């Protein structure tokens, strides 16, 4: 099964918004896929996940307040996070679930029942 969360297409900057791309890990288990995305500074409320066709878009809005006082150094980005993935058709999009824990999004994308490996017992 090589049609995974296959090719990744970068979000087009239609609205002139600048995004940074979160770092992700993607795993496949027999039940489905797990996607972890690093989005420090984003909580549950700042998270937006949209499914459209066979594409899933993850957007994370940071809620950290900008550095108010005098900055000595500044390495973090202020931009929001966004990344788009193409989904394996085997994924049951109705059952996708998401969890946010300490700035890491964990998406669980189960495969639909009909594509899961099944044992057929012989009578």
């Amino acid at each position, binding site marked *: 099964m090589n049609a995974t*969360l296959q090719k990744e*297409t970068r979000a087009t900057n239609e609205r002139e918004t600048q995004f940074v791309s979160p770092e992700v890990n*993607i795993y496949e288990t027999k039940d489905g896929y*797990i996607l972890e995305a690093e989005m420090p500074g984003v909580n549950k409320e700042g998270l937006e996940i949209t499914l459209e066709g066979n594409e899933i878009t993850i957007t994370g809005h940071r809620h950290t307040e900008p*550095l108010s006082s005098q900055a000595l150094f500044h390495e*973090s980005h202020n931009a929001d996070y966004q990344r788009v993935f193409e989904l394996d058709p085997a994924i049951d999009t109705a059952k996708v679930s998401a969890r946010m824990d*300490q700035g890491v999004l964990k998406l669980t994308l189960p495969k639909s029942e009909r594509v899961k490996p099944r044992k057929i017992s012989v009578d």
Partner: protein
Amino acid sequence: MNSLARWQRPELSMWPGFGRLTSLRDEIDRLFEEPLAALARSSQLLSGWTPAFDVCEDKDNFYVRAELPGMRKEDIELSMHNGSLSISGERKSDEALKEAEVYRSERFFGRFQRTISLPTQVAVETIKAQYKDGILSVTLPKAEEAKPKHIDVKVS
């Protein structure tokens, strides 16, 4: 930007960013202290993790903010030594996914350490730290003697 650029596994990364210089220095320090074999096993010369830091100050405090997504609070260590703040820790991968097939691996797991020296003395006993939404925020009050003083001079 080409999306393939992100593809490289962290351990193959040959481009240490600016922030990596500190960890490179730490590695060089270690190079002289540890047998080479031990280093080869755990070497992060070419990879490693240098979390992004923001440091700012006002009249009374220094504020350090570090992006450390996906850690457990108890795996983060903070220490002060000679006016330098060290933040270190270990990020562990999800045991439940050990057996899973990996399709993409961009996140770093393992130990990291970063040290920043603060320009003035801080009151070590009253340092406060909070970890929320993957961001560690540390407030370091400046020592009384380091604060700018305002002296009223009366001119008569």
